């Protein structure tokens, strides 16, 4: 029974069919099988947030999900959000404010930040910090990240940051 399991799902709006081992987690499936290496693998136990992806519209840790659990699901990775232009303004704000240095946490940060901006149009700084609390950054000290998210939120409602 440790044999390969058939799997069908949507990844960034493309149908994917594969056979996977039950032990394969979603992050490794995306990176190793689909070569979508924007999803990063940091701690592999749900603490760092670098592997954050969207499943059926909600952010999750892809290191804490088995690939086989995504049967019939719709998975969106940072490649999907980036190529589709959904977060172009957020990415520009990250660049403008030096909200990244090494960039390892950035895909997860963008995923979590966009999730907040979809739920709350103009979140306060405390709310931003709380929503990003599950994403570690070891370079920036977070201040610039919070600045970038706050500026994007204000720009999206038409306020000049």
């Amino acid at each position, binding site marked *: 029974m440790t044999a390969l*399991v058939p799997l069908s799902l949507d990844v960034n709006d493309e149908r994917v069919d594969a056979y996977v081992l*039950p032990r394969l987690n979603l992050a490794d499936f995306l990176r190793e099988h689909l070569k979508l290496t924007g999803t990063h693998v940091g701690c*592999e136990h749900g603490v760092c947030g670098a592997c954050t992806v969207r499943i059926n519209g*909600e*952010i999750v*840790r892809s290191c*804490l999900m088995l690939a086989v*659990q995504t049967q019939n699901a719709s998975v969106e990775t940072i490649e999907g959000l980036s190529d589709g232009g959904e977060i172009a303004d957020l990415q520009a704000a990250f660049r403008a404010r030096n909200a990244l240095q090494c960039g390892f946490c950035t895909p997860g940060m963008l995923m979590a930040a966009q*999730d907040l901006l979809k739920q709350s149009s103009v979140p306060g700084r405390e709310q931003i910090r709380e929503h990003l609390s*599950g994403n570690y950054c070891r370079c920036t000290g977070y201040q610039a990240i919070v600045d970038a998210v706050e500026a994007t939120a204000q720009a999206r409602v038409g306020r000049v940051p």
Partner: protein
Amino acid sequence: MKAAAFAYARATSVVNALELLAAHGDKAKVLSGGQSLMPAMNLRLISPELIVDIGELAELRGIVVGGNVLTIGALTRHVDLQKSPEITTHAPLLADAIAHVAHPAIRNRGTLGGSLAHADPASELPACMVALGATILVCGPGGERRIAAQQFFTGIYETALSPQELLVAVKFPVAQKGSVHFFHEFARRHGDYAIVGLAAQAILENDRFADLRLGFFAVGDRPLLAEVANKLIDVDVTPALLAEASAALSNELDPHEDQQASPAMRRHLARVLLTRCVSLLLSRPELGAGATA
């Protein structure tokens, strides 16, 4: 690290899940949201031979209010509890606590049943169940069992569940007139496991506690319903009485030592939480003066 190899079965019904558990016993592990099980497997703390995935059993999901009882299905996710008007109205303690359970991406997957079955002594929801006087509903080969939350948690990651049983729901009374609650925890980072925490549910009558249930967590091998609460019921709480209760609390706790805190620090923080809780619930700020963490 990555999980060791295992076989995988997607349960098609509760009956099917019970059949799989009956056949494989303690070699199998139930997977619901996976937010506790997957880290443990990735860290190779456990290596089950079979994973029984109950994630698609819709009958285990949902929040129902009937009469004075709230019933929550085991597969109800943390985010469902957080967004539920029924929880906000009838179990405000749980609504407060959920905001402290991990982070948004984890609350989107983690389930109430999974958290309770995992029984981490530092996690919030087991302590809430103890404070709320919840009953845990469990299905097994012999039918259904109902276990009081206080009897359910038996040690670090240990519960009264047998390997053949499945946690299916929890029930507890809705908050009644005069109900007040308190939730607070100390943690290094918002959403991390608590260094020490307190989930408390009380009933006030004429500025006194008619009932007070104090569920401490991360102070021992399981959530603790503190007996010192009884000293504070049906009396006028004076600073001297609260100091006496606070001293007695220390003797009830059996905190562990780790890189975050010593047992002495955990005892101190628990006493601070007790004092803050009592002063806040009674709206008597003078009782909490000097309770600094």
